[in-house]
């Protein structure tokens, strides 16, 4: 398993850079990962990441659709906050696994 160091802390990640142990995550680490993605985090970013982390911890599936039910932001804003592939970027920065859509 690969490791990476963010904000002075060494964390376990997979080959794509996603956390394999979400409990190693901190807000300081998030700021550093976001920098790699060219994103400066705001309170809105943290609010939606908290929603995603909570959902992940509860074992619920993450999807773009579920953002509209977050009570935090809508999907369009989600795309503005994490341009390109928002769910992939947001989960990476939030220290949780990349969502696997089921078949």
């Amino acid at each position: 398993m690969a490791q990476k160091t963010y904000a002075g802390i060494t964390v376990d990640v997979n080959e794509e850079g996603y956390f394999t142990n979400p409990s190693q995550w901190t807000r300081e680490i998030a700021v550093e990962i976001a920098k790699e993605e060219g994103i400066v985090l705001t309170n809105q970013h943290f609010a939606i990441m908290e929603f995603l982390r909570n959902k992940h911890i509860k074992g619920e599936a993450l999807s773009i659709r579920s953002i509209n039910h977050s009570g935090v932001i809508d999907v369009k804003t989600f795309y503005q906050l994490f341009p390109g592939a928002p769910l992939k970027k947001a989960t990476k920065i939030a220290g949780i696994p990349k969502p696997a859509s089921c078949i």
Partner: protein
Amino acid sequence: MKNLLILGAGTGGTIMVNKMRKRLPSGEWNVTIIEKEKDHFYQPGFLFIPFGYYDRNDIVKPNQKFFPKGVEVVNNEVDRIITEENKVILKNGESFQYDVLIIATGARLSPEDTPGLKAELWHKSIFDFYTIEGAETLAEFFKTWEGGNLVIDVADNPIKCPVAPLEFAFYADDFFTKRGIRNKVNITYVTPMSGAFTRPKASRMFGSLLQNKNINLVTDFFLGEVDNGNKKILDFGGREVPFDCLVTVPLHSGDPVVSKSGLGDEFGFVKADKNTLQSILYKNIFVIGDASNCPASKAGSVAHFQADTLEENIIDYIENKPMSASFDGHSNCFIETGFGKGILIDFNYETEPLPGLYPLPVVGPLTLLKESRLNHFGKLMFKWIYWNILLPGRKLPVTNYMSMKGKRTD
């Protein structure tokens, strides 16, 4: 007398009513099934309708035909479940008490949740093929269509039969080639996933099939809206794909009864334990098939494999024993690839679709994750199996749990 109540007579509900009537002593248990429709559609057959291979009569039978003796059938619409009182209320006000409830209300299409999808061009240049009406309207449209941009778009997961849109793309290539206008039809497959399919091996295989058939692939595209005036679809980030004919697989939701009764997730799918199939909120409520939020495929094969688990667990529940059966996410599907060939895939929660032979090693006879003519005939034969073995709850000569026999992991 105790009451087992089943809501919905699709694939899952029909299998369960047959299994449970056989299993529960008729002197102790009433079995009741509530379903508002009178027709049972063989849903895998919808794929063949737009291309004129099947029509409505080839895929519909009265659902009455599949209910066993000794079962009360209620042909009416459910309004809500009052979970605290173990009671189901119908739209007409009638109510039914239950000791055990099985929710088998399936998934429905919700095109109205995407702005512009069900608008001016609906069933003129925009079609679905997951309903009989959509499939028939598209068949009429294709008869005289002279070509242009054909876009097949999956709005977002979960959807029923996740391979069906790919099969549609392969069949479109076959169909327009045979009609001699393939050079005038530009086919584009648009998906929210990062590849042609989930999980690496299958995604690579389907990706190269699309390429060989000259079908464009657009990935990571979550449908945000449809611009009817300029005939294009847009994702939430503003990416655009123009179309002349759009074949959509719209967003899916659970039955409104589920949300109204407080049993669902945000999309109306019953929150259930993915292994026991019991509601996480009420111990006497169980779920089968597309109606659940289990991370398995929404497919008939899943409902079929779940049925044995569910039967055992309901019996354990009734006898106050810990639940002994566990569903492993097993799914299995034939995938039509056009020109008389097909592919078979077999997988579960943990194991991705792998190459090999099925159901037996060495002799197969069906090939996994590889095109063959026999797989195509397997798919055609499956219709007979569905009506005659699957729905009546009879045993098929394959295991319910996914088996690694015959699979190659290299």
